[in-house]
C-alpha cells in the first residue's frame, strides 16, 4: 500500500515515499513540537481573556513579557540565569521517569548537594581553585546521588512508593540542612542569617566569558544532551525504557530492574546535587537558607512539561525562566500582583499537560503504509 493512499499525506511531498514511511521519524518529532506549541497558544489566548476580565490590556502584557524575558541582551541573560538551576533539577525527575518512577524530592538532593559542596571546600583552604571546585562538585554529586538513591533502594528492595518516599525524604533533607547550617556547621559570625563558612572568593565559579551567566547554564545543557544520548542511544537507556514501558516484560527478559531503579535514582539525584553545588560555588559562596528556593520543585514541572525528554527540558526551562524574568517587570509596569505570573504558568502547564492526550490522535503524524 502506498503512503499516498492517506488523503492528508498528499499535502506532504516528503511522504511520497515507497512502501516504507521514511518521513515518519521527522513527523513524529514535528508532532512533539507542534503539540506543546499549540497548547502554548491556547493557554496564551485563555490568559488574554483573563487579563481582559481584569481590565488590563493583553497586548501590553505580552509586550512586557517579551521585553522582560527575551527583548534585550540583559533580559535574555536574566531568563537564562533563572533557567540554569532548573535544567539539572528537571533531570532529577526525568531520568527516573524513564523507568516509570515519579520522583518529586529533588529539592532535598539539591540543598544537601549544596551543603556537601560548601563543607567539602572548607578544609581545602589555599588549594588550587579548580581542584577545590572539582572536589566540591564530587561532594555535591555524591550527596545528591545518595539521597535520591535511598528512595530508589526503598522502591527496589522494599516496594515503598517512590513518590511519597522522595517527597518525605526531601522534607527530612531540608530539616537536616537547616539543623546543620544553624547548628554544628554554622559560621558563628553569621548572626542573623545562619550560614556555613564561606568557600572563599578564589573558589567561586566565574561567569561565562562575555556574559553575566554562571557556568551552571553550560553544565545544565551538556547534562541534558548527555542524558538524551544515554536514554535514546545506549543499551542501558533502552533497558530503562523497556522497564518503564512494561515492568513484567523487563523482568521476563532478565533485565536487572532493581539495579536500574537504584542507578536511575542515583543519577537523577547526582544532577540535583550538582545543581546545588553550582548554586553554592557560583551564586551564594556559602550554604544557607537561600538554597531552599524551590528549584527542586520547579524541576518537577519542567520535566513533566518536557515529557521527560532531556532535550525538551532545555526549551521548557527557558520558558519558565522567561516567565520568571518577566514577572518583575509586569509587577512594576502594570501593577499586577506577583500571583499573576503564577496564573499564567498555571494556564500553560494545564494546557501543555492536556495536550498529551493529542499524541496519536492526529492521523497525519502517525505511521503510514509500511510493513
Amino acid at each position: 500500500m502506498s503512503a499516498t493512499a492517506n488523503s492528508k499525506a498528499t499535502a506532504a511531498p516528503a511522504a511520497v515515499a515507497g512502501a516504507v514511511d521514511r518521513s515518519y521519524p521527522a513527523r513524529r518529532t514535528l508532532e512533539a513540537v507542534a503539540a506543546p506549541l499549540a497548547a502554548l497558544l491556547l493557554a496564551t489566548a485563555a490568559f488574554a481573556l483573563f487579563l481582559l476580565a481584569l481590565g488590563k490590556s493583553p497586548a501590553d502584557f505580552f509586550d512586557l513579557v517579551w521585553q522582560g524575558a527575551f527583548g534585550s541582551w540583559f533580559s535574555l541573560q536574566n531568563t537564562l540565569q533563572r533557567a540554569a538551576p532548573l535544567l539539572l533539577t528537571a533531570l532529577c525527575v526525568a531520568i527516573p521517569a524513564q523507568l516509570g518512577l515519579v520522583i518529586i524530592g529533588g529539592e532535598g538532593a539539591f540543598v544537601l548537594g549544596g551543603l556537601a559542596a560548601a563543607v567539602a571546600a572548607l578544609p581545602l583552604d589555599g588549594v588550587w581553585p579548580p581542584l577545590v571546585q572539582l572536589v566540591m562538585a564530587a561532594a555535591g554529586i555524591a550527596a545528591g546521588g545518595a539521597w535520591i538513591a535511598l528512595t530508589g533502594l526503598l522502591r527496589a528492595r522494599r516496594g515503598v512508593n517512590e513518590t511519597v518516599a522522595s517527597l518525605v525524604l526531601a522534607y527530612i533533607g531540608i530539616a537536616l540542612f537547616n539543623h546543620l547550617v544553624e547548628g554544628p556547621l554554622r559560621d558563628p559570625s553569621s548572626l542573623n542569617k545562619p550560614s556555613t563558612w564561606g568557600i572563599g572568593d578564589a573558589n567561586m565559579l566565574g561567569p561565562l566569558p562575555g556574559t553575566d551567566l554562571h557556568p551552571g547554564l553550560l553544565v545544565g545543557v551538556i547534562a541534558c544532551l548527555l542524558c538524551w544520548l544515554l536514554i535514546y542511544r545506549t543499551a542501558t537507556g533502552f533497558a530503562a525504557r523497556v522497564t518503564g514501558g512494561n515492568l513484567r516484560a523487563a523482568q521476563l527478559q532478565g533485565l536487572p530492574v532493581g539495579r536500574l531503579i537504584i542507578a536511575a535514582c542515583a543519577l537523577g539525584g547526582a544532577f540535583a546535587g550538582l545543581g546545588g553545588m553550582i548554586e553554592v560555588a557560583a551564586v551564594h559562596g556559602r550554604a544557607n537558607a537561600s538554597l531552599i528556593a524551590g528549584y527542586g520543585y520547579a524541576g518537577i514541572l519542567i520535566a513533566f512539561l518536557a515529557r521527560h525528554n532531556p532535550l525538551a527540558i532545555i526549551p521548557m526551562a527557558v520558558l519558565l525562566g522567561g516567565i520568571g524574568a518577566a514577572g518583575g517587570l509586569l509587577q512594576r509596569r502594570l501593577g499586577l500582583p506577583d500571583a499573576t505570573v503564577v496564573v499564567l504558568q498555571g494556564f500553560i502547564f494545564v494546557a501543555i499537560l492536556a495536550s498529551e492526550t493529542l499524541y496519536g490522535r492526529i492521523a497525519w503524524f502517525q505511521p503510514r503504509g509500511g510493513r
Partner: protein
Amino acid sequence: MLSRRSLLSGAAAGGAALTLGGGLRPAQAATLTIGFIYVGPKDDYGYNQAHAEAAAMLKKMPGVKIVEEEKVPETDDVEKTMESMIQLDGASLLFPTSFGYFDPYMLRTAKKYKKVQFRHCGGLWTDKDPMNTGSYFGYIGMGMYLNGIAAGYASKSKKLGFVAAKPIPQVLLNINSFTLGARSVNPGITTQVIFTGDWSMPVKEAEATNSLADQGVDVVTMHVDGPKVVVETAERRGMYVCGYHANQAALAPKGYLTGAEWNWITVYKMFLADAQGGKALPNFVRGGLAEGFVKMSPYGPAVSAEARKHIDAIKAEMMKGGFAVIKGPLKDNKGALVVPAGTAYPETAIQLESMNYLTEGVLGSIS
C-alpha cells in the same frame, strides 16, 4: 557630592553601557525613580507590608516614581530584579528590604552599578562595604518590652506565648524584651516560646498558636514575617495578642492589645530629602521610638487604664534615651548569670546584636 541629576544621568550612562540590546528607558530628569524589593507579599500584615505602606506614602510625594516588586527570593533573583529596575526602569535609588539580600547579592550589584545608591534594611553595613551602599534599621526591642507590659496586665493565667521563626539574635532580643516587660508587672509570669524554623510557615504558626492556647496561655505575640495567622488564630481562641511589624488590630478587634510597629516612612523621607536636595545619602542609619523609626499601635479595648498609664510612663522614659531593657543582674533560663549587676545595655549596645540566650522566665530552648 551627588546631585539628583548626576545620579540619574550616571545611572542612565551606566545602564546604557551595560545594555547591549534595547530596553533602556530614558530617565526623566524631573523624577527620581526609587525601587522597593520585598521578600514576601506586600499585604502580609507584617514585615513586607510595613515597608510597602511607607512606599505608598512616598509615592504621593512630588518628583518621585516608585517601582515595586514583591516575593523576590534571597538568591541571584534579587540581583536580576535590582538590575532590571536600574536598566529597564531607570531606578537610581534602591531599597532591597529583606535581611538576606545584603550579602552577597546587593554588594555584588552595587559594585557593578557604582552610580546607583543602595540602602538595605537590616543594619549590616560596615565601612568596608561600597560607599554607594548603606543600611538602616530600627530598635524594635523597646516596642516588644512595651508589648510585654500590656501582656502582663492582660494575662490572668500568667502564661504568655511567643511564636518565633528562628533563634537568631534579633528574635531572641524580642523574646527577652517581651518577657522582661511582662515580668516588670508580675515577676511570676512566664513566656512559652515556640520556634517554627522559618520566616513564613503559616501552618506551623497556626499549630503553635493553638498549642499555646491549649496549654493555658492567654496572651500571645510573635516574630515571624507575616503575623496574620497568629493574630487571627489568637482572636478565634479568645486570647489576647500583641502585634509586630505592622498594625494587625483589624484582624483581632477584641483581643489586640497593642503592637510594636516599624515606621519606615521616617527613614525613607530622610533618604528622599537628601537625594532630592543633592546631599550624599548616609550609609548607616539606626533609630528607635525616639527617632520615629518604631511606633506603637493604638491601644485596643482590652488594655486597662492602669496598663495604659504604666506603658505611657515607660515609653516617655524611653523617648528620653538611654533606657536599658537588658540590664544586670540578669540570668538566662538555665540559671547562668548573663549580664552582671551594674551592667546595662541600652538599645544601641553592640552586645545585644550577638545575643544567644533566653532570659529567666522564658520556657523553651535555643538548640
